[in-house]
């Protein structure tokens, strides 16, 4: 008899207030509460947790690497967004 699988959940942890949640791995669980507790037990044993998000893996939409040029290249050409594009005289001090 082939067993139905426990679904996969992706885990995001914020380790301290002020930081963003970071993806740190996945757990298997039957429901959200089980996933949350598993994530807490597996990924915050050394006090690395302040907030946990768990998301069913199937709910995540990822960009296609083939579209890398289309999605990301235009940003690269707009170098005027970068502070290094602008020169500020030394006498003015740090800006």
């Amino acid at each position: 008899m082939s067993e139905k699988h426990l679904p996969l959940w992706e885990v995001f942890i914020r380790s301290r207030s002020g930081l963003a949640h970071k993806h740190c791995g996945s757990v298997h669980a039957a429901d959200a509460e089980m996933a949350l507790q598993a994530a807490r037990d597996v990924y915050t044993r050394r006090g690395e947790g302040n907030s946990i998000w768990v998301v069913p893996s199937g709910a995540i939409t990822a960009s296609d690497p083939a579209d890398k040029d289309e999605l990301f290249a235009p940003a690269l050409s707009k170098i005027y967004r970068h502070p290094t594009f602008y020169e500020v005289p030394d006498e003015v001090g740090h800006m």
Partner: protein
Amino acid sequence: MYTQALNAISDEPADQSAEAARFQAQVDAEQKIEPNDWMPEAYRRTLVRQISQHAHSEIVGMLPEGNWITRAPSLKRKVALLAKVQDEAGHGLYLYAAAETLNVAREELIEQLLSGKAKYSSIFNYPTLSWADIGAIGWLVDGAAIMNQIPLCRCSYGPYARAMIRICKEESFHQRQGYGIMLTLARGTSGQKAMAQDALNRWWWPCLMMFGPPDSESQHSDQSTRWKIKRFSNDDLRQKFIDATVPQAHYLGLAIPDKEFTFDEASGHWKSGPIDWAEFKRVLSGGGPCNRERMRVRRKAHENGAWVREAALAYAEKRRARRDAIKIAAE
């Protein structure tokens, strides 16, 4: 380490496509390959086997050490050992998670382990016969594992590299804990000293075998090296391990159980006597002291757990159905 060059990479003709060239360029430039990137099928298959074998090793590795939790001789040692074994479960889990990014389910991998199709590190087929074995495992087995794991932190596949970084951070207390136990025993009663020497006598050779067959007999490591999945040769790592460990053994006042062991002035390396590769092959193919017992235990855990997993899924389904019914009723 727990990878032991146990797999042969199939002799597929080198992919000549532009994608393959781009892939190799990415690897050569030390840019990580991520789950959605194009990769040769052989690269994906090799990684699934290597990562899952590593994961299986962590899980099976819980058993020889878990064996002594109830008999740990002090509360401090008890919690330290329990935390270590728990870490190993966690490591297995990180690695299964990394393998799953390559389009394979954890359940499939577990099925491969339990059916005997997948391998795990030979070292865990040896029994833990005394408390000193717990010290020896932490000192030698984890010491050997760290040698292999640090280079893997730079392996080409992103999720595997990140799992290895996490594992290496956690592993640092494991080896120290083991060596600490050996130190306490070596400075203890004559009974404890004898216990420590006996453990070293039994674990030394199997630990040397952990690094896999000699380079002269290793197949297909070129491809693994080119793909930056394998970063150093078996013999190089084995030698590094020996050179690091011998002074540690001397500090303990323990003897390396090798009548032919010598220090080679010219190269500055410790030279080991001949390794019994027949034993290695025998243990790998199921003839070690604990192979059958380890698999029996893991199969039993999995089978006994089936009704629990089914219950969790059934309950989740019931809850979903009830929520949907409420939503419909509210409309």
